[in-house]
């Protein structure tokens, strides 16, 4: 027990670095450095000390090496000198190599940053590894192809805290759309969450002011982020101020939160006390085990080292105890840190990432780096032939094999390190646009992230080692084929992704999506006057039709087991989408009726017992005459009155499933008790801004308390394929880079072969060879390589792209044309990059090459 108080210490990494570089007995030098650090920390404070210390260290290292070079490093100095001289002498060669390596490394760094960011989601919480989310499985209730839901009953939290000692804390967190009234204008806030006071015991979101223990304890208290504080209060202190939500309830601001990190699976702007909902919704409606009208998300903090499976195994008993003998849901636990990349369940708070894309990106990075390395190997091997004299002389003077290997490796290290520095500059320049392109706020900061720097240096060293070792050790034949293989594979992949995107864009979804405006109605006043609203809108000449009070084709997403006439007792029906629509649904979305009739006001029974099925649903029942048959879904019994053509309510990833339509009616409870609040307006293509302004005016008239938010239906549909579109773009960029690097390599190789054969070409010309003949002679090899590469590339690309296309239920096929175009492109690119050198060599004056002085 010498000293209890801890002296400020430099970072572990810098200590490690010092120990490695300034080697001595007893770590005296490390002690010296630590003393410097302590003095700095005393004088300037820790933060500044860190920065200054790094600066100090960075200046120290080269000084130290400069000193030691003078004693022992004569040989090293010589290597350096020769390497630098070589770089200067063969400028073209060096530029090609450094350019290839730096572009390759740039791709690597960008992708590394992206992957690192994706893995950083939700990891900044102190207890990140012990936080779990409770999710539910409702067997048989399938929504968008999955029966797992991000939902839990409101009473779960209390049960978890009471019955299970291993659950340290539990909290609910639920998002509500909030309309905040400020200076009499409504503002929509999408990031308002209601949370229990335990929220801050589980998650470590920092507060700028306010007490996390009490901030969300009292009803109608809320914490706001800096962003919101700035938006509504400017520079005033918001603590203690009142914010009105929904023109009904006043909330008091009890503190300010730091802005929510973007790498969080849910991002909030406002956190309000959960018990406010007891007043607004009624406590008995929340602390219950039935009804899932609202999404309560429940998170819990588990004791360290407690196996979550053990807790999960106790859940069925809990469900029985609180929810009754035949409780329909099952409870499951999901680790917090897995949510972003591995969750594919319904009602996720925000769109998540996808681990597959991480793999894909990493593979792209790897391949591009491979191309750069292979390029280097090829060029170095090609050039080694001209360096035999140098090696010979070195050996004569006394260098052994090790020295020579060391020299070659050193040279490749110089190339990669230079490449690394240039690539870092590229990354700095490109990062903002790359970040906005993939929609992530990526950062690249060496001061705070020395591990990353270490990674990069490792990558560079490995690359240097790989690309240097080959010519250094083997000096064997050229193999540019592998570079071309990768390029061709990437060209095929890009073309296929684009074909599929094109296919999606042009395939008929089965309903009209152009010139249709969609939006949501929240105002009860407007909801009660829908028909009037509709008539008033219809009067405007540019508005062709209005659809309210029913599902849109893209919002049909809940399914259940249907039963029908002819289905044997006890036999399970088929999962069928249920859609609640208004009378004009088929006309409005131009969906084709192929049999029977549409819903009609003339038949009063239509509101309670008419079904219209799609073709797939009819096919599954096996009926020949569907009209008039009995059908039931979601407990609603009726007769089939019509059959429509299939349309795609979900993405083209999924097959069209059976679907049944029926009329919405206020008297009969609808699916999952949800309120349908979508509307759609069909407009003509003239004067769209004028029409939009008119609609907004009318909307404001009926619903003054809510902002008018709308979107075009075709854009909503496109959004489903956004990740594919992004994939297509990313693929094309990276393919371009891959082609660019391999072109550099081919160009370099061509210049070497031309250079080596200068004399031969001269003699051939003297003997009467034509220019075109010599160009042919020089290009022939490259054409051979491209053709050989195809033999390898085509099967690889075919297998890979077939796999990817399996993801789509509706897909294009990989046509022969894709391959023909790719091969032609590869050939053309190869010839273009070779042509400059071959033309130059072929047109040169033979006198220049044959003259010998």
């Amino acid at each position, binding site marked *: 027990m010498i000293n209890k108080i801890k002296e400020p210490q430099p970072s572990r990494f810098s200590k490690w670095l010092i120990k490695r570089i300034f080697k001595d007995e*007893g770590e005296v030098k490390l002690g010296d450095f630590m003393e410097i650090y302590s003095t700095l920390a005393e004088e300037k404070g820790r933060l500044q000390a860190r920065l200054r210390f790094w600066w100090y260290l960075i200046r120290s290292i080269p*000084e130290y090496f400069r*000193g030691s070079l003078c004693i022992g490093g004569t040989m090293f100095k010589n290597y350096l000198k020769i390497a630098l001289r070589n770089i200067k002498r063969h400028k073209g060669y060096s530029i090609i190599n450094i350019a290839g390596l730096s572009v390759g490394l740039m791709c690597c760094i960008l992708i590394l940053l992206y992957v690192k960011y994706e893995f950083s989601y939700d990891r900044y919480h102190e207890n990140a590894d012990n936080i779990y989310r409770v999710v539910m499985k409702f067997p048989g209730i399938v929504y968008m192809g999955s029966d797992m839901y991000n939902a839990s009953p409101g009473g779960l939290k209390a049960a978890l805290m009471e019955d299970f000692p291993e659950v340290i804390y539990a909290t609910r967190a639920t998002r509500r759309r909030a309309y905040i009234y400020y200076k009499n204008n409504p503002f929509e806030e999408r990031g308002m969450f209601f949370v229990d006071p335990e929220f801050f015991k589980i998650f470590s979101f920092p507060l700028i002011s306010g007490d996390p223990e009490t901030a969300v304890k009292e009803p109608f208290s809320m914490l706001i982020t800096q962003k919101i504080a700035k938006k509504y209060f400017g520079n005033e202190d918001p603590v203690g101020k009142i914010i009105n939500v929904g023109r009904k309830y006043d909330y008091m601001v009890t503190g300010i939160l730091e802005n929510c990190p973007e790498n969080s699976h849910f991002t909030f702007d406002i956190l309000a006390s959960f018990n406010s909902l007891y007043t607004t919704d009624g406590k008995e409606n929340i602390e219950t085990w039935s009804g899932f009208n609202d999404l309560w998300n429940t998170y819990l903090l588990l004791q360290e080292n407690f196996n979550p499976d053990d807790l999960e195994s106790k859940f069925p008993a809990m469900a029985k105890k609180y929810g009754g003998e035949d409780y329909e849901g099952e409870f499951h636990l999901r680790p917090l840190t897995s949510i972003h990349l591995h969750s594919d369940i319904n009602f996720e708070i925000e769109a998540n990432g996808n681990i597959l894309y991480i793999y894909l990106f990493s593979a792209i990075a790897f391949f591009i780096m491979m191309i750069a390395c292979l390029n280097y190997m090829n060029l170095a091997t090609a050039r080694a032939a001209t360096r035999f004299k140098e090696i010979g002389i070195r050996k004569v003077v006394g260098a052994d094999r090790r020295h020579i290997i060391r020299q070659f490796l050193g040279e490749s290290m110089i190339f990669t390190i230079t490449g690394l520095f240039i690539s870092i500059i590229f990354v700095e320049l490109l990062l903002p646009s790359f970040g906005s392109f993939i929609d992530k706020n990526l950062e690249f900061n060496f001061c705070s992230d020395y591990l990353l720097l270490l990674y990069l240096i490792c990558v560079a060293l490995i690359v240097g080692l790989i690309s240097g070792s080959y010519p250094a050790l083997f000096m064997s034949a050229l193999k540019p084929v592998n570079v071309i293989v990768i390029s061709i594979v990437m060209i095929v992949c890009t073309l296929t992704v684009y074909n599929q995107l094109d296919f999606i864009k042009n395939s008929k979804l089965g309903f009209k999506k152009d010139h249709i405006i969609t939006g949501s109605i929240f105002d009860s006043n407007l909801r009660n006057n829908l028909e009037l609203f509709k008539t008033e809108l219809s009067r405007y000449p540019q508005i062709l039709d209005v659809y309210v009070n029913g599902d849109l084709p893209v919002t049909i997403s809940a399914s259940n087991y249907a039963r029908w006439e002819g289905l044997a007792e006890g036999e399970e029906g088929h999962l069928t989408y249920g859609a609640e629509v208004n009378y004009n649904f088929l006309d409005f979305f131009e969906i084709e009726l192929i049999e029977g009739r549409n819903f009609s006001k003339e038949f009063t029974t239509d509101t309670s017992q008419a079904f219209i099925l799609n073709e797939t649903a009819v096919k599954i029942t096996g009926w020949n005459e569907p009209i008039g048959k009995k059908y039931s879904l979601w407990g609603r019994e009726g007769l089939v009155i019509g059959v429509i053509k299939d349309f795609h309510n979900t993405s083209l990833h999924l097959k069209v499933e059976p679907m049944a339509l029926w009329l919405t009616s206020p008297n009969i409870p609808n699916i999952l008790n949800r309120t349908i609040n979508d509307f759609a307006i069909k407009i003509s293509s003239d004067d769209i801004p004028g029409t939009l302004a008119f609609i907004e005016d009318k909307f404001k008239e009926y619903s003054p308390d809510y902002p008018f938010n709308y979107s075009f239906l075709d854009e909503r549909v496109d959004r489903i394929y956004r990740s594919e579109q992004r994939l297509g773009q990313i693929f094309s960029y990276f393919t371009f880079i891959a082609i660019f690097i391999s072109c550099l390599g081919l160009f370099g190789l061509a210049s070497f072969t031309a250079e080596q054969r200068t004399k031969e070409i001269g003699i051939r010309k003297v003997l009467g060879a034509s220019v075109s003949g010599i160009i042919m002679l020089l290009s022939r090899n490259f054409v051979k390589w491209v053709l050989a590469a195809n033999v390898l590339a085509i099967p690889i690309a075919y297998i890979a792209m077939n796999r990817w296309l399996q993801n789509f239920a509706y897909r294009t096929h990989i046509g022969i044309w894709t391959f023909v175009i790719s091969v032609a492109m590869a050939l053309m690119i190869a010839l273009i990059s070779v042509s400059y050198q071959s033309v130059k060599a072929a047109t040169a004056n033979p006198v220049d090459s044959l003259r010998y002085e």
Partner: protein
Amino acid sequence: MGMLSRTDEMILLAVWRLEDNAYGVTIAEMLTRTTGKKWVLGAVYVPLERLEKKKYLSSSLGKSTRKRGGRSKRLYKLTKDGLDVLIKTKSREQSIWANITISSLEKGYDK
């Protein structure tokens, strides 16, 4: 005994000035103070080790402090040889600079 390089000379003098407290940090500080140019630790280790090898300096491990995270100091001292070479350098210096003042230097400048 050959001539000392300028760096070696300055380091030996710094060690002499610091008497019993000459180790990495203090030597770098002293050099910074006397030369007006910033000396970092990395710049003093190599010459110190070289001078020790030439037997102008001797070193021993000193005590550790909390600031150094418990690591001991390496304290340097001038040897007899070191002192001799400094004396020689000083006398050589004096004879080179004998009777030359700054003003007399300025006078000789060709305008």
